[in-house]
């Protein structure tokens, strides 16, 4: 109990110490968006009859007629109250948009990460057990292919084969069939909401919808995970304690899994954390190809039309998630290796 409490306190302290960084991100993104060429007022006042007067109206509505420090002050005050502003693009408050879209991105990214880990760790271990064998080369080839095919190509390919040719997958348009009914939104995670609503059929439909995009993303990140597993397994298999374990005649399974893998898993967790954060923000291509209503495609659309508030909200969200994931990784460290604790 004492150690858990201590971990919690340290976690809280770590979180507090990351607040200045978040503030910096906030201000930096704010300034960056203003420096970018492109005037949102001109873009959004672009009806066939909009003239200079309409542009001025939009500019006033967006508060862009005020001075920069004044705008920043208002923005910080609003963010402090939990108001991230309003998106011109969707016409909705940014906080609401992000709240609706984040579960979609998280669900997809988490599933992809789980698939990737399930595939990558055994592949890496197999490759490490027989370095430079046919298996090792096979894994290397598979990883290289996964990394060098861009996600929009593999995504379109999977759609072509599984939806267009074979008809096995449902149409790749978002999280759920448009004709199906949505469960009452409790968590925003469809897989959870369907289970809470006791709708197994709906759950299965949503799971099918999730498979293609999740595999597309997983293919892309199997490589770093498998490579790091292989490398750290090699080190671990060559170390003294494994030799000792072998010499006292422990079973092969026990040697590989209990001793070697447990010690090799630390760098894999680190990489998994980084991969997760990156995937969440960078899976925009997958989201676009599968019409997935996630946060990344939302931010890209907003960036193209210089819609400031959503981009700023997105960067803030990503920064917070990055902080949270890194914290979580550190906590997991402690579980994987009791000697390591959150400092």
């Amino acid at each position, binding site marked *: 109990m004492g150690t858990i409490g201590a971990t919690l306190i340290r976690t809280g302290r770590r979180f507090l110490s990351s607040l200045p960084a978040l503030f910096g991100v906030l201000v930096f993104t704010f300034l960056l968006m203003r420096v970018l060429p*492109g005037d949102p007022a001109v873009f959004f006042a672009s009806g066939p*009859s*909009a003239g200079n007067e*309409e542009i001025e109206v939009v500019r006033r509505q967006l508060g862009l007629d005020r001075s920069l420090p004044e705008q920043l002050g208002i923005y910080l005050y609003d963010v402090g109250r939990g108001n991230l502003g309003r998106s011109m*693009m969707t016409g909705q408050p940014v906080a609401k948009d992000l709240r609706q879209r984040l579960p979609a991105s998280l669900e997809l990214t988490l599933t992809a990460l789980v698939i990737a880990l399930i595939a990558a760790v055994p592949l890496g271990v197999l490759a490490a057990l027989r370095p430079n064998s046919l298996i090792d080369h096979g894994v290397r080839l598979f990883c290289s292919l996964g990394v060098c095919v861009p996600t929009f190509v593999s995504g*379109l390919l999977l*759609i072509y084969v599984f939806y267009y040719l074979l008809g096995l997958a449902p149409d790749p348009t*978002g999280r759920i069939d448009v004709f199906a009914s949505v469960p009452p939104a409790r968590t925003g995670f469809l897989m959870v909401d369907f289970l809470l609503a006791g709708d197994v059929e709906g759950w299965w439909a949503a799971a099918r919808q999730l498979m293609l995009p999740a595999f597309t993303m997983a293919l892309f990140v199997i490589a770093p995970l498998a490579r790091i597993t292989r490398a750290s397994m090699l080190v671990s298999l060559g170390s003294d304690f494994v030799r000792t374990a072998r010499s006292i005649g422990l079973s092969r399974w026990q040697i590989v899994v209990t001793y070697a893998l447990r010690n090799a898993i630390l760098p894999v967790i680190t990489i998994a954390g980084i991969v997760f954060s990156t995937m969440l923000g960078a899976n925009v291509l997958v989201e676009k190809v599968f019409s997935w209503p996630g946060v990344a495609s939302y931010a890209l659309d907003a960036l*193209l039309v*210089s819609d400031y508030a959503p981009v700023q909200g997105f960067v803030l969200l990503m920064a917070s998630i990055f902080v949270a994931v890194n914290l979580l990784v550190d906590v997991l460290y402690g579980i994987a290796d009791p000697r390591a604790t959150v400092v």
Partner: protein
Amino acid sequence: MYPVISRHLISASAVLLSATLIAPAARAQSRAETLRYVTAATVNTLDPNIPGSTREAFALSMSSYDRLVSFGRKQLNGKWVFDLDTINGELAESFSVSPDGLKLTFKLRPDAKFHDGSPVTAEDVKWSLDRCVTAPVLGKAQLLTGSLTSADQFKVIDPLTLEVTLPRPDKLALPNLATVYPIIINSKLAKSHATPEDPWALSWLKENEAGSGAYIVETFKPGEQAIAKRNEAWNRGSPDKPAFFKRLIIQSVPEPATRANLVERGDADLVIDLQASDVQALEAKGKLKVISTPQYNAVTFISMNNKIPPFDNVNVRRAVAAALPYDDMFKAALFGRGAPLFGASWADGRPPSGGYPIPQPVKLDLEKARAYLKEAGVPEGFATTFSFNVGQAATAEPMAALVKESLEKIGIKVDIQKLPDAQMSTSINEKKLPFFTEGIVAWLPSTDYFYRNFYTGNQRWNYSSTDNAELEEIAQAARFEPDKAKYEAEGKELNAIHFEQMFQVPLWQPAQDAVMAANLDGYVYQFTRQVDYRNLSRK
């Protein structure tokens, strides 16, 4: 008492029985009665008047709201398109224009009801039109083009009659009331959600629909989908009949290849924004219906800023016009899908018509281009940039490459600039781009409208920064010209000036490629360049 109960019981059990028996059939039928439309864009507001409204928002509002009047349709080269010259009553059962052209009187349909069941009254119409000309909305600038500027112009005569007064006879006043913005809103409902800061309920109407249109919005998720159900009481299309489809699904699918797959497999019914190459492939397979309509109220240009040297020299502009590889661009950018505005021959060098746009007598002629450059005093050519926006990259990118290659031959070095959409519109508005491609569209495409809005004033739509006193004078005079023959003559004069000065080079009118299930019927090309869902039915 007894027989009554038993009759109820029997009918109830019959309903139950048939419901269990036909459940799978009902599902299939509901699919047949649903229109699933997929698009790259998104509906972002339920009130089309909100600044920033997308074209998809316009399209949905055409179905969710009624206007006083609507455009008819006509056939153009065998395809149905909207007809500016036929105005039908929508909420107006009848309307009349006074002989002096200063008073429009609208008689409302007595049976028209809003979606909450309350009747549509002249009070609602007045409030809605007042809002359109008073509130900070998009409708204000549009209605201005029809001399509708003040709330005083709308007068309630009786609960079913509204009178509109004009300061001068204006032939665009009536058509303006059929455009997207002057929607008729349930004023009681809207007013109950108005606040002192927002007397016109802009923020409430953005997310809530209070109309009387053919479809009732059920779900509205910006960026994902909008779903609407049929308004059974609606009879504004054909008498006594609501729209055909019971349900309407408008879904955002950003990836064009996915949209093509969806419609080809029959999971989506209709799409209008596929890539030209996909359209061609689908058309060749012959399983789907493809209706290509040149967007006859839109033009794509290669524009030159007439104020930035060396494009301030008319001979430089003529040189560029003579050095563009028109045919290659048309094939590479549009796969030939559209109506070309080049390669015409004008007898005696005079424009054959007063319409706008008309095909120009321009063609690729490098010798002539070199001669013009020499005349302009820059025989060795010059360097410039050619810009287009990312959103149009699919067509503009191949076009830009061809422009660069061809102009290089006469010594003009072109640097291609691909700009994010917002940056492009900003630079155009600030008149910073010397040479670029852009498009225009007019909801009420008449010659004087085009010239007044796209060739005068220091404003965004005057791409070429044209400042020509003669052109402006003729265009202004043409606006209120009642005599058709005179109007035509003025139009010819404007076209002659345009060609003589070569402000910018009209290239083509791209086609709107509507790709739809083979059993879909009734598609009409609309002024919004979107689908009017009310027109469609399934055979």
